[in-house]
């Protein structure tokens, strides 16, 4: 990982004008973390682009797309939303044109590609994850597809590095499950395993020999994995109950649904006052701000004051960052939505596309989450208990309380095969100028390839989103492949925005 970082810094190395050092670039772009997950391992993308407005990674993304298209043929249908998505897509097209290669004539294998900017949907990324894989990421931090399970999980005195992907038979069955199901599943699995072990009794020598040579190794392996995941579950449970997880989830759901705002605000305040966790507090504040379209000025000031008192003045910079990225803002009484929009559209028509970056950062970004949520029906109406064992929609990844916005957008666009009918949503996302559909090669795509969809998350995606889309794929007969700049979660997003004393 570090090698890539140094090399990408080529620009700054040239300052020293060292003629004797020749720099070769290792075009490191795609790291396959799993059968359906490609990561560019660029965690810095999020801060660099969404905070600093640094466009240097766009080229990298375009190169990665170019690489994929040379391997799997051109993408006949492309959709996207977000400025970065649009720029990456356009740059990629330019690269394709520059290198008139044989890709054009190839039969496309990936029928559709969907590019999505992280800032289209911060809410989903900010929520606590309750799907197993997401929860493991939130609790232990999955790095490059592997996780370090500490002694409390392995129930020995050593920590263990474990690869988490489809190879792990136990993990692949529980990764997309809601956490409440996982224990049941694991104990069932343990019983099955025991039963298989038990078959040993009453075997004759020959059968035993067969058993040892063929099955035992697999069983042992499974046994090992099972005990690891059970250990992980226990450790998660222990940590979560300590922090009053239920209360936290309840507040989050209240924020998503938009009721009891006052109560939630005081919960957050108490959270800050008690110095529970600087990152968690920040996350809740951002969630409140985005779902409420900015904090009312009084809360904005008081929460910030409280936070500074708890965690020190350097976080003034954190707040300035969060404001710039549109994560934590103040409701602006004067400026109506239409005024902002006209300003934006005027800038967009300006040919120098780069000017928008600065213009955007100066504008208070509006999330309009409530309106979007209503339009896209993100909060499912539930009659009675939501059965998490048999999920009926993507909301199961958040205990049935919320359908991830990003996934809903993808679902809707794929269903309609364009943005048609979603104009209002696009407008509310402040993205009238940066959503696009490109279907020039429709005729050449086989129905087989159309089922294969590459989803590109610019700025990172969470395991919850991946789980939700895997679910959608199973329901609708799609196969999703994920390409992300990095796998992220709420803590990583907040840390990227935080100023830390060094």
């Amino acid at each position, binding site marked *: 990982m570090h090698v890539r970082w140094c090399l*990408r810094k*080529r*620009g*700054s190395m*040239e*300052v020293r004008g060292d003629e004797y050092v020749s720099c070769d670039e290792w075009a490191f772009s795609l790291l396959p973390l799993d059968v359906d997950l490609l990561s560019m391992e660029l965690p810095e993308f999020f801060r*660099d682009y969404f905070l*600093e*407005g*640094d*466009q*240097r*990674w*766009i*080229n990298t993304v*375009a190169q990665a797309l170019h690489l994929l298209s040379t391997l799997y043929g051109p993408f006949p249908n492309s959709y996207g939303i977000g400025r970065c998505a649009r*720029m990456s897509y356009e*740059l990629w097209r*330019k690269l394709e044109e*520059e290198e008139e290669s044989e890709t054009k004539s190839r039969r496309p294998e990936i029928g559709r590609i969907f590019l999505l900017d992280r800032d289209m949907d911060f809410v989903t990324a900010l929520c606590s994850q309750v799907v197993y894989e997401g929860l493991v990421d939130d609790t232990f931090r999955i790095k490059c597809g592997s996780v370090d399970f500490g002694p409390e999980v392995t129930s020995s005195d050593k920590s263990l590095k474990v690869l988490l992907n489809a190879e792990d038979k136990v993990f692949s069955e529980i990764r997309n499950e809601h956490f409440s199901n996982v224990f049941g599943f694991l104990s069932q699995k343990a019983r099955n395993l025991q039963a298989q072990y038990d078959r040993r009794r009453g075997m004759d020598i020959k059968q035993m020999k067969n058993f040892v040579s063929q099955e035992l190794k697999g069983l042992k392996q499974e046994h090992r994995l099972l005990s690891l995941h059970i250990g992980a579950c226990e450790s998660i449970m222990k940590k979560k109950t300590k922090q009053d997880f239920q209360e936290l989830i309840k507040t989050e759901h209240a924020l998503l649904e938009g009721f009891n705002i006052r109560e939630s605000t005081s919960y957050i*305040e*108490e959270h800050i*006052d*008690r*110095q529970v966790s600087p990152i968690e507090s920040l996350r809740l504040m951002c969630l409140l701000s985005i779902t409420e379209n900015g904090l009312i000025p009084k809360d904005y*000031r008081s929460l*910030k*004051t*409280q936070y*500074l*008192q*708890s*965690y*020190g*003045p*350097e976080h*003034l*910079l954190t707040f*300035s960052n969060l404001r710039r990225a549109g994560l934590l803002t103040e409701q602006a009484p004067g400026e109506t939505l239409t005024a902002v929009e006209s300003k934006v559209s005027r800038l967009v028509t300006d040919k*120098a596309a*780069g*000017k928008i*970056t*600065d213009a955007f950062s100066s504008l208070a970004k509006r999330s309009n989450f409530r309106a979007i949520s209503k339009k896209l029906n993100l909060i499912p109406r539930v009659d009675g208990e939501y059965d998490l064992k048999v999920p009926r929609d993507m909301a199961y990844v958040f205990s049935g309380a919320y359908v991830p916005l990003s996934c809903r957008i993808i679902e809707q666009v794929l269903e309609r095969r364009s943005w048609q009918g979603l104009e209002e949503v696009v407008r509310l996302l402040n993205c009238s100028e940066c959503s696009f559909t490109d279907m020039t090669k429709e005729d050449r795509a086989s129905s087989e390839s159309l089922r294969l969809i590459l989803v590109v998350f610019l700025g990172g995606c969470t395991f919850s989103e991946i789980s939700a889309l895997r679910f959608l794929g199973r329901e609708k007969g799609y196969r999703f492949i994920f390409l992300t700049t990095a796998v992220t979660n709420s803590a990583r997003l907040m840390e990227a925005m935080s*100023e830390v*004393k*060094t």
Partner: protein
Amino acid sequence: MDCYTANWNPLGDSAFYRKYELYSMDWDLKEELRDCLVAAAPYGGPIALLRNPWRKEKAASVRPVLEIYSASGVPLASLLWKSGPVVSMGWSAEEELLCVQEDGAVLVYGLHGDFRRHFSMGNEVLQNRVLDARIFHTELGSGVAILTGAHRFTLSANVGDLKLRRMPEVPGLQSAPSCWTTLFQERVAHILLAVGPDLYLLDHATCSTVTPPGLPPGVTSFLQMAVSFTYRHLALFTDTGCIWMGTASLTDKLCEFNCNIRAPPKQMVWCSRPRSKERAVVVAWERRLMVVGNAPESIQFVLDEDSYLVPELDGVRIFSRSTHEFLHEVPVASEEIFKIASMAPGALLLEAQKEYEKESQKADEYLREIQELGQLTQAVQQCIEAAGHEHGPDMQKSLLRAASFGKCFLDRFPPDSFVRMCQDLRVLNAVRDYHIGIPLTYSQYKQLTIQVLLDRLVLRRLYPLAIQICEYLRLPEVQGVSRILAHWACYKVQQKDVSDEDVARAINQKLGDTPGVSYSDIAARAYGCGRTELAIKLLEYEPRSGEQVPLLLKMKRSKLALNKAIESGDTDLVFTVLLHLKNELNRGDFFMTLRNQPMALSLYRQFCKHQELETLKDLYNQDDNHQELGSFHLRASYAAEERIEGRVAALQAAADAFYKAKNEFAAKATEDQMRLLRLQRRLEDELGGQFLDLSLHDTVTTLIVGGHNKRAEQLARDFRIPDKRLWWLKLTALADLEDWEELEKFSKSKKSPIGYLPFVEICMKQHNKYEAKKYASRVGPEQKVKALLLVGDVAQAADVAIEHRNEAELSLVLSHCTGASDGATADKIQRARAQAQKK
């Protein structure tokens, strides 16, 4: 047929030598060759003549003329020599003319008389002047060897990578050597020189005397020496009229021949073919040419005119004012076929084909004869090979026709050797044409390779022919046509009389989007010729922005380069331009440029954040970006400054900036931090311990833990810490201290703004059930159940829940009923539930 071998001369029993005319020269030479310095390049290369070298009888005021001709005598260039006296000239392997001046300077000219560059052979040479010089070719490149007036040698084995070597001194050498030459053994160049009867070999370090084995007695001086084309053999001409031939290492003798002529020959060169056993030397005097080898007799020719010999790989070229001839040993294949009364299969096949054309049945007889011997394949091969060595197209044709005829009677004769020979001959005939004037033989062509031949055509600006050859041979575009077009374009941009627009248009029309053509390379050439505008126009055709930028930078069109880099979307490229601009422009201009390029600006800002923090400040200052300026100072207050005064000053600057940015919240917060910082300093002084850099909350906590309650309260008042926070804070701090007495006192100080549940919780966390129970009773009704459950009093919790008739609370209690002891309680709840449902 009878007369075909008329020009064949036997030398000894086994070899024939033939001399045939390549061209009749129609160069209009005003002077005799002997009055000129002559240099002719090998591989049918060009001929350079420097007329009127500095001869004493001529008036020094007349400037000499340097003329360059093709091998067929077509003038290529003519220029007045304006530099100093030239001692020697020679062609490099790249067909550049090297002119060695008396002062040791070497001037390099192109094929068309264009001056390329010059270099010097060193100070020693400059002081002692040049007596003699040789240009020689080795596998390392083209070298120059110089004999100075002090009778010392200096040489460079490769003028492309000039490294001068001063050879060691020959002890006691008083006069110039009678003759000398360069040898090349084991990748090192040596010098062999003759002084009187002695031979000396100079390598880098030593000077050694050598004696050729079997040298006839009576030699008092060597008049001439010659080394073969491949540096394998050496020939010595002695003053006794004897020619000694042997290996260049002077270890073996091949033969010797006494020609009985004591006059020093004008030239002596080797004439041998690769892979042939025959060795022969051609010696030229004023009017006589002699071929001598390992035979008692020699071949003699009369020279009508002043002639000049050019050694080649497989023979000798001889040119004079009127003709240009080639003398070589007849190759085996030709000899077998054409030798009188030859019965070789090739000869029979040629005969058979001729009879066949005459429709005579003899054809069949000949063919049968070959087939009976099973030599038809060999016959075909012989004919093909012999065709390659023929100069006249007619004879080539009849040999190829014979081969093709013979091929018909063979199963599975691989056709490629025939096809390739036809192609090669077509190419060779084309370049041998009088107008082109490159008289390459087949062996030379194979040695040179088609790529080099194409390069030489390009060098002669024969672009159409080169392209035709590429197309004919179906060379891949990138190696062939594209490369030649690119060369053409590079030449085109040098045509100064054509306007920029026309040149650019002409180039684009011809080149279009041909793959492998780099417009940026052509543009670079245009820039090299000083045509910046043309270069920019050409760059417009370059599809890859990445290729445009470096040249634009070189041409100092940095702003244009910046635009292109931004267009390309390649941020590495933008960085490159930015750093270039930064050095090129003064700061103000640089910032102004950035201002109009937001993408570049944000990149530069990123760069500054990592590399040049001070510049970042200037950037914000220029933009009046007070918010960011404030953030900058704020960051400096803890990251850059060490001393407390510095930190306060940085904070003050931050606060000022925040005020200017109308961000009162940040300004106030910064001012609070200044106060806190000063206070923390005072606390450290007065109480000791670590206070600096703690947050307000942590400062108060530290005070309480340290037992400074008064101070803590004062601080809370000063900084208006809300009651709720203070209670949480005290509660946590006291519980951590396990100061239960103080905690109880505190809990009773007034009504708790956070309720009493936290008290219970925190006591339980410290496993103090006794204390926890104290507070459980004080918890408000809505949290009472929770509190009671926390302290483990399930029964009472059940009572309260039943009293509240709260379904949620009831289930909560029920979920805590685990042990057997709670059985009664569980029943009680179930009953209460049932009752509630009835109602």
